[in-house]
């Protein structure tokens, strides 16, 4: 009996020793299309560099993944730089409208307060945007929000579907209205629960309930397939939301080379690339795993 006990103890120690030596990184991500894609990209790139990882991608809502990385339950997940404006109150709102400043600010604040490390972001802006039906854009020559402002001000038919948050938060639709000089009446918007742009874009595309415009995110994959056009925010009303890998304190110490591995890949993920990859998942129904593998192989990041 004693021998058995000693044996069990010894094996436990060996297992414990091994796991302490090469503790795998837990990779999480948000439970949405782009979260699944970026999560899989991180998993595959790190694996290709010989880093042991546990795949926990498409893990939960923003709230949950953030709590998880603070609690050390996940080590890496992709987050958007612009969210720094909400994570850290009291910062200058103008900071978040400049890509470089937004990243630098959130990087410094998160490191100082939470020990989290922001790596190099992708040069794509997944910000809130307004998309209109292609036929409307062609007929009324709408390409920017200035055009839209003029169109609405002269009484053009307009009805937008968006989340409650998008319609009411001062820095979302109301900010667009102030900047581009238009006012929407109560019957000109339809509120959809949750921030699901797949739903709002579909409504605009189908013209459900007279809707001809939708709340959209910059890197949404379905925009082109649904024949919608994103109007350019020429005045930079919205914060810049660039996706970047966010690394937990312990993992950043244990694996100092993560940025060297991930930055070359994230630098290639510009707006059109992300839209295209997201579209393959959302429109074609390919799995995030397959799309990530295909992209990384073609680009030569993974053999």
């Amino acid at each position, binding site marked *: 009996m004693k021998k058995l006990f000693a044996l069990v103890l010894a094996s436990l120690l060996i297992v414990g020793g091994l796991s302490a030596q090469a503790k795998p990184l837990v990779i*999480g991500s948000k*439970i*949405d*299309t782009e979260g*699944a894609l970026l999560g899989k990209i991180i998993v595959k790139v790190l694996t290709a560099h010989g880093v042991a990882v546990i795949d*926990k991608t*498409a*893990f*939960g*809502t923003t709230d*949950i*993944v953030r*709590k*998880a990385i603070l*609690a050390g*339950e*996940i080590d890496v997940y992709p987050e958007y730089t612009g969210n720094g404006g909400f994570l850290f109150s009291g910062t200058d709102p103008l900071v978040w409208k400049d890509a470089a400043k937004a990243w630098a600010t959130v990087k410094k604040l998160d490191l100082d307060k939470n020990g989290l490390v922001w790596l190099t972001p992708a040069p794509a802006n997944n910000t809130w945007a307004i998309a209109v039906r292609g036929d409307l854009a062609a007929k009324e020559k709408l390409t920017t929000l200035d055009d839209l402002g003029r169109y609405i001000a002269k009484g053009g038919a307009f009805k937008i579907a968006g989340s409650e948050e998008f319609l009411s938060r001062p820095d979302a639709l109301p900010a667009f209205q102030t900047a581009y000089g238009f006012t929407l009446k109560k019957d000109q918007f339809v509120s959809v629960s949750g921030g*699901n742009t*797949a*739903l709002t874009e*579909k409504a605009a*595309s*189908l013209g459900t309930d007279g809707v001809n415009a939708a709340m959209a995110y910059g890197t949404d994959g*379905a925009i082109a*397939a*649904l024949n919608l056009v994103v109007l350019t925010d020429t005045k930079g009303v919205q914060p810049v939301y660039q996706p970047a890998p966010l690394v937990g304190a312990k993992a950043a110490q244990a694996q100092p080379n993560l940025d060297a591995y991930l930055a070359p890949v994230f630098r290639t993920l510009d707006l059109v690339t992300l839209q295209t990859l997201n579209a393959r*998942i*959302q*429109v*074609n*129904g*390919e*799995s995030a*795993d*397959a799309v990530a593998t295909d992209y990384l192989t073609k680009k030569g990041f993974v053999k």
Partner: protein
Amino acid sequence: MAGKSSLFSWASFAWAFPAVGGLMLLAPWLQVKANRIVEGTSRSLTFDDPIWGSVLLVFWVLPLLLALMGVPRRTVVRVAWAGFVILPCVLVWAAGAVAAPLSPPGSFARVSPSWSFWFNLLGAYAGSVVLAPLTGFSRKWLSAAVGLFPLVLVLGLVTGAFSGLSLLKEYEAQGPVFWTQVQTHLILSGVAVATGAVLGTSLGWVAYRLDRFREPVFFFLNLIQTLPSLALFGLLIVPLAALGLGGIGATPALVALGLYAAFPVARSTLTALDHLDQAVLDAGRGLGMSRGQLFLRVQVPLALPVVLEGIRTASVQAVGNTVVAALIGAGGLGSLIFLGLGQYAPDLILLGTLPVMALALGLDQAWALVVGLFQRRVRT
């Protein structure tokens, strides 16, 4: 006999067949889309797939023709019933056959069932249920017939006959992830039910033995039941993290699901113990049984079937509740459902939902068998 009532009168029934069947032939039966999100075109059984349309029409019209030809009523009913049992099998097979060339492997086209498909299925189901008692077939025959459709489904899935249909496209895209999630789902709900069973029976026993605990125990369990699961997960994050157990992932999911599962078990345990025949207990005491003997040899076996019924309810509930666990990183079939919701992909939502339904129904049946076994054992 039910056939004599005016509502189900023979004549109206017979005429309903071609009317309903004809309507089904005109409505679209399949929806074909170039990819997941664009608007699609419809296929009708009359214009696009007339061969399958005529085959399906036979099931609806043949009984009427036979009736008009003066074939005995019992025979017509049997033919109609058999038709309704076979129709769903032909229907899914036809859908698979039509879909295969429209969406070959590697294609992103989506072919999914539409109005007429579901009407045919629903109509056949309703027809077979209504006619079954009128056929005069033995119960064995009838229940064997119920198994035919699932058998054809499994056959089609195994042989790849349905691989052109949109649901299978989603399945292919998910690949091994689907089965990992099924496994996770089963483990999560299994452990939750086991926890709930232990906790529920103990609490039920405590409430039975100690009167003053009765109210607080059920007040607590009732309170838990009224909390929406997502709120409960949220409430658990802080205390669990403080205990060092991890506020995210499988732990909070199991704690919450276990607490949910405890309620029906505790309730049924208490009910079972409360309703034990006092005469039997007295007899046990009269035989000189100690308290422990009385518990193990009399109370447990007598209460067991009712307690197991509680566990049965808890299992079915747990399989459904586990869906929400995906939102706190525990995985399971809910993660497919939530990804599907995010992508506005109804087929992906279905791919997550159908196994949950199948698991719930399967578990319910399996537990019914177990409960039945114990009931019989007690009786003899």
